[in-house]
């Protein structure tokens, strides 16, 4: 199964570049670990939520606003997509992500449309 590991935390402070470097090194270690195991499918870091733009279409009108979808203290800062045999394996990876120590990692199983061809039309129509 594939799982999205969504990393939530506070936006990084601009005034502490050393802490930022140490964190990047830790993320590099984690990325290397999952890549070596052959389970890494994707992984990206996102710019701070102050860089976010949110788009809604209502009655054919595109509404564009500054900022993230929801104003919360902890924001989505990055994500990995990993292949794991089951939730326990995904939990093991999530717990290794540096952001889990001061923020939280949300694990979301990824829908596998290829395993349910009959459901594909329904699912794509509903979402």
């Amino acid at each position, binding site marked *: 199964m594939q799982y999205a590991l969504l990393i939530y935390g506070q936006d990084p402070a601009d005034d502490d570049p050393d802490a930022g470097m140490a964190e990047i090194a830790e993320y590099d270690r984690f990325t290397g670990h999952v890549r070596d195991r052959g389970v890494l499918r994707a992984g990206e870091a996102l710019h701070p939520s102050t860089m976010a733009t949110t788009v809604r279409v209502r009655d054919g009108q595109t509404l564009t606003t500054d900022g993230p979808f929801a104003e919360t203290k902890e924001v989505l800062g990055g994500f990995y997509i990993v292949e794991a045999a089951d939730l326990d394996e995904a*939990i093991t990876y999530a717990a290794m992500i540096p952001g889990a120590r001061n923020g939280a990692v949300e694990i979301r199983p990824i829908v*596998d449309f290829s395993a*349910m061809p009959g459901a594909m039309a329904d699912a794509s129509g509903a979402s």
Partner: protein
Amino acid sequence: MATLIRVLGDFDLAEEAVQEAFIAALETWPTRGVPANPAAWITTTARNHAIDRLRRQRVLRAKTEALTRDATIDGDLTTTDVDPFEGDDTMPIIDDRLRLIFTCCHPALALDARVALTLRTLGGLTTPEIARAFLVPESTLAQRLVRAKRKIRDAGIPYRVPPIELLPERLGGVLQVLYLVFNEGYAASSGEALIRRDLCAEAIRLGRVVAGLLPDEPEATALLALMLLHDARRAAREGPGGALILLADQDRSLWDAERIAEGLALVDVAVAARRPGQYQLQAAIAALHDAAPTSEATDWHEIVGLYRALLVYLPTPIVELNLAVAVAMADGPAFGLAMMDGLFDDGALAAYPYLHAGRADLLRRLGRWSEAITAYQRALELTDNGPERTFLEGRVEEVYVAASRESRPD
């Protein structure tokens, strides 16, 4: 059932397949005779039904592959072309139950869902029975079960006994669910007596399964001991009309000697592993109560020590309250009262009727009548449990009588 759920990864499909297998059994056993191992026969037949269904519905191709793979791994019982009448290996079925307990109690499921799923899947209780036991509408409980099963399937919660490095953490979750089920049955806070007894019986039965299959885990053994030692006192806890009888006032000849003997022996086994834990401490406390001929003859000093140790594992105000009660028994009510008064400071227990009732009891024993009455009345305001209210009202009456006797000695 547990075997099939693991193999198929789908509760509903497994339930259906088992039903079909039972129908097949009704049709064939009368003519062919009951097989040597009926459970294995049902499992294999249900599995074959499930495979047929899966093949018909190509949508679940991935699961058919899992089935085939599994069939290769444990070929004896599970290959699809074996004569089911020859299977005699029941061990995989027992192991599957353990796997299923860990699945049902997975921390990725909400606690109330874990409890419901464990009782429904591993216990002998029906959905309406569980709903009645936990005082929730049947539809709510059914929803809870559906959602939990869907999460197990869609989030990929594994069917397995966790690897050794996860075992302590996960076993704790399993024991928590079993003890919660037991307590729900034991603390007669509400609901029907019969169903409450069922809950205790189920918790003990599942506790036996877990302790039996994980003999090297002292906490599992200790939880079984703890439940047996509590359950042994059941008959003595209730007076006529369901009246509450406190431990100190119970007729100890009504205690179940067999359960106590089993519980005491299990405590010894658990403690011998020298890996202490919260259930061992609680079981040791229960053991001291159960082994004592009277309340006065109880080793209260030892109980005080055990509660102090338990506070390290369970730093909760309730444990502190129990410690204060034990201190009152060991060193005198004034010492216990001082500890209880301290408990009001953190506020967590201010609305807890047992703190007020406990304080009232100590004030009564100290002859501080008017304060005792105030405390009993505060406890009465905070509980709507019938037997408990009757008990507290009785105590208020006693204190009035004692106080008036003192003021007019003749």
